[in-house]
């Protein structure tokens, strides 16, 4: 089957492509030709992109798909639907499931659930058995099963000696250890420590709980020469530490969530649990440094920490409610609204942070815009103004602080695995 995408603006920063008014011919989901083709080519389906953008498919390296264990909140399939509608063709799911992803069997289970979907699901395995921080997971076996990184996300690997060994061992496979950085002896609270935590009477999590672990992890990465990736960076000091470490050539990378570059802890004033996350929303000063970090490359990528939760668990006492938000369906809109339209990042930089860099960190190939390559695209309308409506989320859960927020720019479709999502429908190519 032949599909012709006409009037495409093509951007691929790695291939140094930035072209307008191009057409792309796909045959059975594979790129056949790119150029000015509209005259004289017959196709089964012609889609006019009206000068909207075609970029390499977006990839979110930090999502929670909840399966196995909490299928009431999300499943691999509903999470993939959420990702596709949000503009992603690939996700890497975190291992804090029940059971945890710490064996080849669970990896296989998830891969089977995700088979045949437009969205590629990669797994990040637990760094330690059961995410308990005591015994290393079978890293070699998990690598062979196809995992792309290791993390005890949700908690920090508490013992330095275990993290040291994990960094040493994972080097054999060139995969990173992804750290959730939180010194639990300092945290245990419900929000950032600031005047707002004092006013709200909520137990605080000081920013130093993150900073101290980021510092420790950088020192361990330097010493072991292993690769460390800092998940959901949220503090000014942590960004500065990563910047200094990168300058020294230490193998450290970092991601930030859209909510951590958009919201501050001022949003908590009404105890709305949709604003409860871990790491907690910080302050304007932290956001300013995160923005600098996004601009200068200290922060490599944007990952949303997609964390679906059931309504009954979120609709509770603030201190008892679980952390996190449904992120996949607002991540692209927030990145375009907050970073592109506010002239913080160029579109090329946004594509790097949402597509190229996360794949590099996880040692995965970058989709190429070349004849013979599988088409893996995200289609972007940079200027559409739209309102977030949680009732329309494809995710099984609806917990988002961005409901009713006006955003500018969104994904209008995705192409991958010989499938396309456009105008709200999936179809085969």
């Amino acid at each position, binding site marked *: 089957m032949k599909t012709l995408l006409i009037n495409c603006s093509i951007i691929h920063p790695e291939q140094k492509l930035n072209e307008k008014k191009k057409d792309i011919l796909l045959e059975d989901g594979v790129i056949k030709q790119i150029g000015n083709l509209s005259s004289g080519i017959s196709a089964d389906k012609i889609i006019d992109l009206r000068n909207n953008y075609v970029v390499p498919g977006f990839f979110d390296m930090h999502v929670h798909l909840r399966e196995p264990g909490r299928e009431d909140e999300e499943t691999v399939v509903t999470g993939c639907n959420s990702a596709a509608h949000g503009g992603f063709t690939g996700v890497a799911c975190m291992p804090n499931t029940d059971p945890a992803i710490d064996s080849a069997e669970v990896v296989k289970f998830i891969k089977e659930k995700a088979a045949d979907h437009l969205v590629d699901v990669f797994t990040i395995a637990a760094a330690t058995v059961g995410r308990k921080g005591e015994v290393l997971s079978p890293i070699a076996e998990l690598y062979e099963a196809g995992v792309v990184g290791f993390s005890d996300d949700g908690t920090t690997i508490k013992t330095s000696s275990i993290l040291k060994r994990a960094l040493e061992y994972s080097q054999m496979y060139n995969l990173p250890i992804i750290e959730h950085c939180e010194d639990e002896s300092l945290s245990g609270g419900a929000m950032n*420590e*600031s*005047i707002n*935590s*004092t*006013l*709200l*009477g*909520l*137990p*605080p999590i000081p920013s130093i709980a993150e900073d101290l672990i980021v510092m420790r992890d950088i020192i361990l990465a330097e010493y072991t020469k292993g690769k460390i990736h800092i998940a959901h960076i949220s503090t000014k000091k942590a960004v500065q530490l990563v910047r200094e470490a990168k300058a020294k050539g230490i193998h450290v990378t970092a991601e930030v969530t859209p909510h951590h570059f958009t919201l501050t802890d001022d949003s908590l004033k*009404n*105890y709305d649990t949709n604003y409860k996350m871990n790491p907690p929303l910080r302050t304007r000063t932290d956001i300013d440094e995160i923005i600098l970090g996004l601009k200068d490359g200290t922060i490599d990528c944007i990952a949303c920490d997609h964390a679906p939760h059931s309504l*009954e668990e979120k*609709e*509770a*006492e*603030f*201190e*008892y409610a679980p952390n996190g938000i449904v992120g996949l369906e607002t991540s692209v809109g927030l990145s375009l609204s907050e970073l592109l339209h506010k002239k913080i990042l160029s579109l090329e930089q946004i594509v790097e942070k949402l597509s190229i860099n996360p794949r590099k960190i996880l040692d995965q190939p970058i989709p190429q815009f070349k004849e013979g390559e599988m088409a893996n695209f995200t289609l972007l309308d940079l200027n559409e103004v739209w309102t977030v409506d949680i009732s329309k989320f494809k995710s099984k859960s609806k917990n988002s602080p961005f409901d009713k927020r006006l955003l500018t720019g969104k994904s209008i479709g995705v192409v991958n695995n010989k499938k396309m999502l456009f105008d709200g429908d999936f179809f085969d190519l």
Partner: protein
Amino acid sequence: MSLSSRHLLGLQGVPKEDIQLILDTAATFREILERPIKRVPTLQGKTVVNLFYENSTRTRISFELAEKRLSADSVNFSVGQSSVSKGETLKDTIKNIEAMKVDLVVVRHAAAGVPNFLSRICNSNIINAGDGIHEHPTQALLDMYSIREKFGKLAGLKVCIVGDVAHSRVAMSNIFGLKTIGAQVSVCGPSTMIPKFIEELGVNIIHNIDEAIQENDVLNVLRIQLERKAREYFPSIREYANYFGITQERLEKNGRDILILHPGPINRGVELSSEVADGLNQIILKQVTNGVAVRMAVLYLLGTLN
């Protein structure tokens, strides 16, 4: 005159006029409490639920009496006797209680923000009777009432809150209320017990108890909650008592007449020496009586709003 809000969730942001109205109304009820027949029909036909998720004797009895004095029907709901132990969510519980047609809900909960949460999901008027380490507005109002009773005013007075300020809902409500009404507020305690960034609210920090005694008209001495995690915040009770405890000797060094309040129950020999505590008996008991009057005022003002 009526209050500008349907609920009393805390004193943060409550306008001066509302605080004054509550205190003035409390003065009227205070007088009723001295009569042989202490009951008025003001809230006849109104139903109040006392929803106590945390143990409390004083506050609950004080509210209950206030409700009875106003002729309201009141129901007590306490953890242990309820569906909470069966795993019911807070939202389901409040929805069930509301379905029984109640007018006011007095709530105490260990988690901060529960009164705010309830005010969003139900129609009753909510009164905060203490939420986590956030606020305890009626306690602060009765403290303010007691101060005003002694000095005839609040504006311009110097009030110091002493003790574990960082973990005290009484302290926060006092700070908000007193600042709004124009008093000068300071806090005194070990630095581990001073709330972070509190100076941003225009509150002075003192670490020397003698200085606090010398410079203030009122000391509001908090109870050191030995049963909570308070112990982690200072090296020993002995050290706390030696450096922050209020003794007769310390008070005598300073000749001025100073009012000491304590929300009770007192840890004798810790925040107050036994001698000081005995000397304070009268005012502390007066605080308790004032508490009923202040709660009557709040119940009356909210209960007759609609």
